[in-house]
């Protein structure tokens, strides 16, 4: 029996020889083997259970939004860089390879399904992502066993300069401004998410796919502020926008580009002991 405490259950992502251990706050991994019962006329009971599809795994984790460097030309962390690359692949119908993910001694080659980043005032930004492990050729989707997996311990304390934080993130470029109003909105927070659709290609005579293609992607950005835009245009202009998250100590910001974004909704809500807050949602598709 392996007893692994959380401090020895790191999550590491590797792509094209570049690795990063994410500051994951939770992680879950599942492996499924779909089986369907078969019935036949003239037979009582079932003929048995038979495979209904290829084995596959799913992994999702939340992590603190780290600003650890530039990965493949994109600032931030390796997941942000991966999402940016996959977004481009989705828009170009390109074939992509999976990325190697290790979690507590278990590893597999995963394809990004979803990615999200949230930032609120005076709080550490958190992100989340999800992967599917399809396997490839004869390679199993997931291999390994539950075991300790962590980096080298460093016994010092320091300020977290490499983590995106609401205190240092300026999203004034997303503030709603009404020409007839008194001023631009105050921005209280933002939640970004993107989901990818992919298409694993299976061939006869082989359980696992020979390749995987991303087909399309849709991203959404919800901005919480204090101005309600009731004059939504029926056919509004598309905008290219950049979401920049920054951390303590003036670190370069992590950038997320939204290409051809349109505002699709606006809302406002009230709760006890709080001001009325508004939210607008922007979407972009690839």
């Amino acid at each position, binding site marked *: 029996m392996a007893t692994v405490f959380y401090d020895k*259950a790191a999550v590491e992502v590797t792509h094209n020889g570049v690795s990063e251990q994410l500051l994951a*706050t939770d992680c879950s991994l599942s492996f499924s083997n779909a089986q369907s019962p078969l019935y036949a006329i003239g037979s009582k009971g079932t003929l048995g259970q038979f495979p209904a599809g290829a084995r596959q795994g799913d992994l999702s984790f939340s992590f603190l939004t780290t600003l650890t460097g530039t990965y493949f030309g994109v600032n931030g962390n390796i997941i942000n860089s991966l999402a940016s690359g996959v977004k481009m692949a989705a828009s170009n119908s390109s074939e992509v390879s999976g990325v190697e993910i290790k979690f507590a001694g278990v590893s597999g080659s995963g394809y990004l399904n979803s990615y999200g980043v949230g930032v609120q005032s005076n709080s550490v930004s958190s992100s989340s992502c999800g992967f599917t492990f399809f396997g490839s050729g004869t390679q199993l989707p997931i291999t390994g066993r539950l075991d300790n997996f962590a980096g080298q311990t460093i016994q010092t*304390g320091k*300020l977290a300069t490499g983590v995106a934080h609401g*205190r240092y993130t300026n999203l004034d470029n997303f503030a709603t401004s009404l020409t007839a109003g008194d001023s631009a909105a105050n921005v209280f927070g933002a939640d970004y998410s993107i989901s990818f659709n992919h298409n694993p290609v299976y061939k006869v005579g082989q359980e696992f796919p020979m390749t995987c293609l991303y087909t399309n992607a849709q991203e959404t950005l919800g901005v919480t502020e204090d101005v309600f835009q009731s004059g939504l245009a029926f056919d509004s202009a598309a905008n290219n926008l950049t979401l920049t998250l920054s951390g303590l100590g003036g670190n370069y910001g992590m950038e997320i580009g939204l290409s051809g974004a349109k505002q699709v909704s606006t809302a406002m809500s009230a709760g006890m002991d709080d*001001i009325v807050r508004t939210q607008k949602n922007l979407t972009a598709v690839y």
Partner: protein
Amino acid sequence: MLGRIRREAEKITINNSGIQGVQSINAQYESVARPLDNLGITEIQYAPQGGQTASLQLNTLLINTLEAGYSGSYSLDVMQNFTGDIPFSGIIDYGTEKIYFSQGYLETYSVSCAIGEIPQTSTTSTIYGDFGTGVLFSEYDQGSSLIPSLNIPSYSSMEVNLDEFTTNRMTSFSVDIATPRVPIYTLNADKPNKVIAGTPIEVNVNFSLDVDDYKIKNMRLVPDETIFKNATITLKKNNSDTTLLSYSFDNMLLTSESFQAGVGSNATANFNLRSFILR
């Protein structure tokens, strides 16, 4: 040589007004830096979690009030004026050192008195602006000053109107006012964009009695026996009929009563009245 600082070298100034009769000051902050925790943690990194605030507690004898000329728009107690939406800034001096604070908002205000005492006020405030010393204090603004004068009230010259004290002797009272605050923080800022004066304001008035024929009520909320009272407490200048401060609350609900008896003391009762004021 080791030195020490005594009360004569300490003072507090709020909005340029020297606060008199101070019995104790407690000013403190607790850093909101918290260690980040993650799966496979390898080092301790600290990041701020939540808005950074400080707190200020002040206990004073109520011996200085504003002059009557202020009474049109101010309470004559300097600190009571901050139960509204006015922020305050100030300085605590100790020896040659100073603690600066800004954007203070009163959270609670209490006044109490017992037989043989001078009325005292206690306040707790939250500092949403800056607190301490250092480079953050390059700009420092204070509100307009209120200048109090020596006016000493006394337990012997106060008036309490509650219809209970003709046969039962009141030995102490307290008035506690809680004024909620709602700070609104935006992105890219560590001070609130605004601090909203929340509502309702909760008022609790507590009395202690040496009882004669005081009747403890039924604890059930029976509509016909629910007790609502109007309470007015008037503090007057010692040996004088000059009114200094008056606390008046209508339709307060009787929310608790207690009775104590002992071999070495008179029978006593305490009761609490509570109301909420919308603003």
